[in-house]
């Protein structure tokens, strides 16, 4: 192709070849500079390739043909001949091919997710085309200038000669301009790739964060926009703080089976219960609830988007989180006998408002107003309700690890299971309507979580002499990622009696969603002017995640009212806990009550409990 150069006058030939050489040399130098030192072999290959090209180009330019002077004496076909430049060329080509295809992981940055050249094709193509257009414009201007300049020099020469020189000049100029244009386009793509690469990596990092993975973000050594690493670190820290601060309508301790160890992950109240935060709603929608009634084309992201309270967009509204919840209980006592009693109890109908503020949502205020049955023990009035506020408190977390909360809330003690009929809740006075006013300090570390609660009774509901006053504390230790061992202590008194309770509990997660929880405790009651009694209780609750949203539960409840009397009560039974779709929980529990008495042989009693729990 370059044979036409041999027709050029000597000085134009020299100029053209020099320009071409300079161009290739420039490309070559760029490759040597920008290719990683570990790609030495590739650099050698390119050097050989370039040497081969130059050898042949020189031959063709100077002679119009190449001199293939090396032949194989044992091969008769004379066309099988080559020269040293050919050898260099082939060695270069094979080396480059070998590096490109067999050592690709060396050429591309290790662990490269951005292997493709076009990360954002539209933007990159636009950038490259604009870059090329600028280069073409500059080439054009330079060409116009030099053409005019040369024409002036050639004016004294005869017309034909001037025209021939001018045409040849234009051909060479055009070829070189096209070459520059191509190179400018490639450089444009390369530059845009280098700029877009870190942005792509950052975009993927953000996607992973949204998917719940918070990995460290690191750019390549030679990448631009290193500032993104700092921004990613800042985002990571902020998310961690959010996670700790605002880290579901219902999040139960059993969710250790899903690797959620702390209530703080999903609740505003770090000890659980009450409304859930945005993260908790998301977890509830995608990790807890089933999607039996969700169409296949509804993505998990859509479910998360629908998990918010209707009309509240968490992206736009950062300070207000309303919550509505209802829990109804269908209870059948003495089930499977002729004298069974069935009733429906509206256990809870709550409206809650959470106000939160601060850069890390470190200020929280939660207000709940709702109803409760008038008298839980008075069967005649069970359907009647009266107003009741389960919680109203303000909270402040000066650091992500420590928080102070003041107001009405649940007592800090033991496993906060939702089964208020079991001994661990009933006997310890930590059941559904045993909230108290007080101050709680909560701290959480990597493996330790602790809370201390000073309380003065329920100021709204209780008469002064019946108010529970005292303190309680809980310490939980993460033995492993899937196991939490805890101890609790509570001392409280009214004008009628005092009570000291202590317990040890353990929560263990298995596989995905399966768990066991156990609590053993002792309660000592001292009536005013009477003899003290010591009670013991035990709880074992098991959960097996059958399919998404559906748990098969097992409950073992043990209670000995007085340790000096050998009367013991066991409550055992299976159950189903089903979250068919988000914001809905259905439960069916069967509980067999068996009493081992010193002086009687009572028949077993059966309880069937059916719960409907919905929330917004």
């Amino acid at each position: 192709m370059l044979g036409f150069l041999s027709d050029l006058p000597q000085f134009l030939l020299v100029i053209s070849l020099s320009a071409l050489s300079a161009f290739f040399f420039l490309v070559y130098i760029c490759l040597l500079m920008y290719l990683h030192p570990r790609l030495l072999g590739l650099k050698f290959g390119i050097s050989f390739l370039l040497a081969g090209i130059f050898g042949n180009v020189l031959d063709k330019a100077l002679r119009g043909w190449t001199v293939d002077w090396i032949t194989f004496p044992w091969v008769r076909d004379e066309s099988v001949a080559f020269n040293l430049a050919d050898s260099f060329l082939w060695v270069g080509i094979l080396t480059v091919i070998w590096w490109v295809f067999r050592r690709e992981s060396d050429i591309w940055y290790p662990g490269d997710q951005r292997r493709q050249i076009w990360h954002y094709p539209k933007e990159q193509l636009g950038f490259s085309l604009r870059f090329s257009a600028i280069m073409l414009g500059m080439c054009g201007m330079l060409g116009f200038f030099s053409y005019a300049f040369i024409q002036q020099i050639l004016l004294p020469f005869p017309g034909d000669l001037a025209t021939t020189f001018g045409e040849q000049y234009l051909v060479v100029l055009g070829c070189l301009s096209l070459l520059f244009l191509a190179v400018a386009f490639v450089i444009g793509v390369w530059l845009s790739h280098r700029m877009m690469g870190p942005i792509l990596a950052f975009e993927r990092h953000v996607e992973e964060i949204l998917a719940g993975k918070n990995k460290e973000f690191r750019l390549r050594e030679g990448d631009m926009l290193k500032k993104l690493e700092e921004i990613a670190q800042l985002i990571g820290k902020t998310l961690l703080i959010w996670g700790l601060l605002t880290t579901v309508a219902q999040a139960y301790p059993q969710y250790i089976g899903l690797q959620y160890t702390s209530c703080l992950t999903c609740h505003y109240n770090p000890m659980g219960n009450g409304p859930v935060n945005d993260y908790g709603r998301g977890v509830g929608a995608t990790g807890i609830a089933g999607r039996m009634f969700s169409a296949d084309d509804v993505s998990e992201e859509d479910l998360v988007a629908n998990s918010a309270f209707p009309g509240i967009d968490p992206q736009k509204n950062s300070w207000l989180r309303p919550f509505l919840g209802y829990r109804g209980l269908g209870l059948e006592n003495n089930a499977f006998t002729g004298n069974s009693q069935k009733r429906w109890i509206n256990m809870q109908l709550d409206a809650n408002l959470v106000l939160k503020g601060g850069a890390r949502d470190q200020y929280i205020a939660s207000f709940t107003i709702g109803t409760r049955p008038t008298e839980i023990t008075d069967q005649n009035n069970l359907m009647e309700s009266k107003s009741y506020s389960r919680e109203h408190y303000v909270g402040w977390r000066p650091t992500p690890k420590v928080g102070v909360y003041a107001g009405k809330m649940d007592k800090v003690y033991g496993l906060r299971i939702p089964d208020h009929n079991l001994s661990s809740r009933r006997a310890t006075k930590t059941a559904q309507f045993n909230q108290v006013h007080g101050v709680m300090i909560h701290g959480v570390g990597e493996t330790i979580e602790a809370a201390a609660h000073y309380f003065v009774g329920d100021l709204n509901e209780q008469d002064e002499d019946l108010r529970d006053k005292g303190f309680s504390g809980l310490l939980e230790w993460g033995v492993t990622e899937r196991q939490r061992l805890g101890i609790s202590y509570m001392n409280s008194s009214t004008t009628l009696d005092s009570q000291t309770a202590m317990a040890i509990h353990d929560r263990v997660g298995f596989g995905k969603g399966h768990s066991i929880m156990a609590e053993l405790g002792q309660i000592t009651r001292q009536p005013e002017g009477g003899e003290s009694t010591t009670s013991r209780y035990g709880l074992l609750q098991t959960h097996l995640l059958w399919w998404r949203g559906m748990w098969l539960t097992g409950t073992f409840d043990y209670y000995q009212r007085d340790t000096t009397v050998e009367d013991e009560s066991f409550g055992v039974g299976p159950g189903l806990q089903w979250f068919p779709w988000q914001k809905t929980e259905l439960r069916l529990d069967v509980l067999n009550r068996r009493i081992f008495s010193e002086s009687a042989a009572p028949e077993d009693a059966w309880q069937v409990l059916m719960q409907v729990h919905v929330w917004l």
Partner: protein
Amino acid sequence: MVIRILLLTSLLWPQMIYAQVNRKLVIERKISQLESFTSQKLGRDQRALNLWVKNKKGKMPRVNNRLLKSYYFLGVLHAQLYSKYSSGEENREDLTNFRKARFYLKAVEPYEYNIDKVEDRLSKMESVRIERMKAITNSYWRLMVQYISYQELALLKDAGGEENITSPQRGLCFGGQFAYGNTEYEWALDACAYASSGNVGAKNPARYFQQDVSSKGLYVKPTYWKLLAEGEAGIGFGVPVLLRTVDYTEPAGVTVESRRVIPFGFSVDGRWRMTPLMNLTTTAAMVDGSMLWSIGLIYQL
């Protein structure tokens, strides 16, 4: 052109043929070379990375890219050995290859080293393992100890007539279990000898009451287990049968007899793997119209 390429590559042919024929040997040799290279040249980074992978504490260490590359290839090579050149029986060698492949690939995963390939390789390896484990069925012998409680149903006959009475029993049971299955399901047969005691009495204790009536027997239960999370937990459905004797005291004019000779029913069971050989197991069963429940431990021999 073709002749040139053939001439240039001719020296490599024997080696290529040998490599194809002895592929497994070649991979093992490569692993050995790569491991010794890694420990010799990148020992410090390797120790830091291994420690972090095991503990996952602190910040991800910055390590030489060559180490990541080396780990990636070690992972790939072990994965090849596991996936393509294994016995398929999940023997010790296969498990070693699987664990090593997972270790190396999991080590480079946080660094996003060839992340697409690493994730793809891990998931393929895992599915190969699951498929193999499903295909492999084993039989197991296990020992069990359980705290068991059930309600004995009896019929009281005296001068006053007949009355259905009950006796809540509780006691301990020792026995064994034979199970056959794979990682997805198990058929098990439990046989547990138990001794229990409990009061028995009429509604009016003055008519008839006896304290600590003892019962001995054999508790047999064939169970189908649906294993979850590769056996970490399981849901069982069984048919418990009680073969027992109850020592009622019968005062003059009074007879007490069991209402069922061989009570049987159906159960829902749960189990959780506490350690690789120890399971916690629970049973809630309807037997003879009353509840039988148990909680205990099963140890695999």
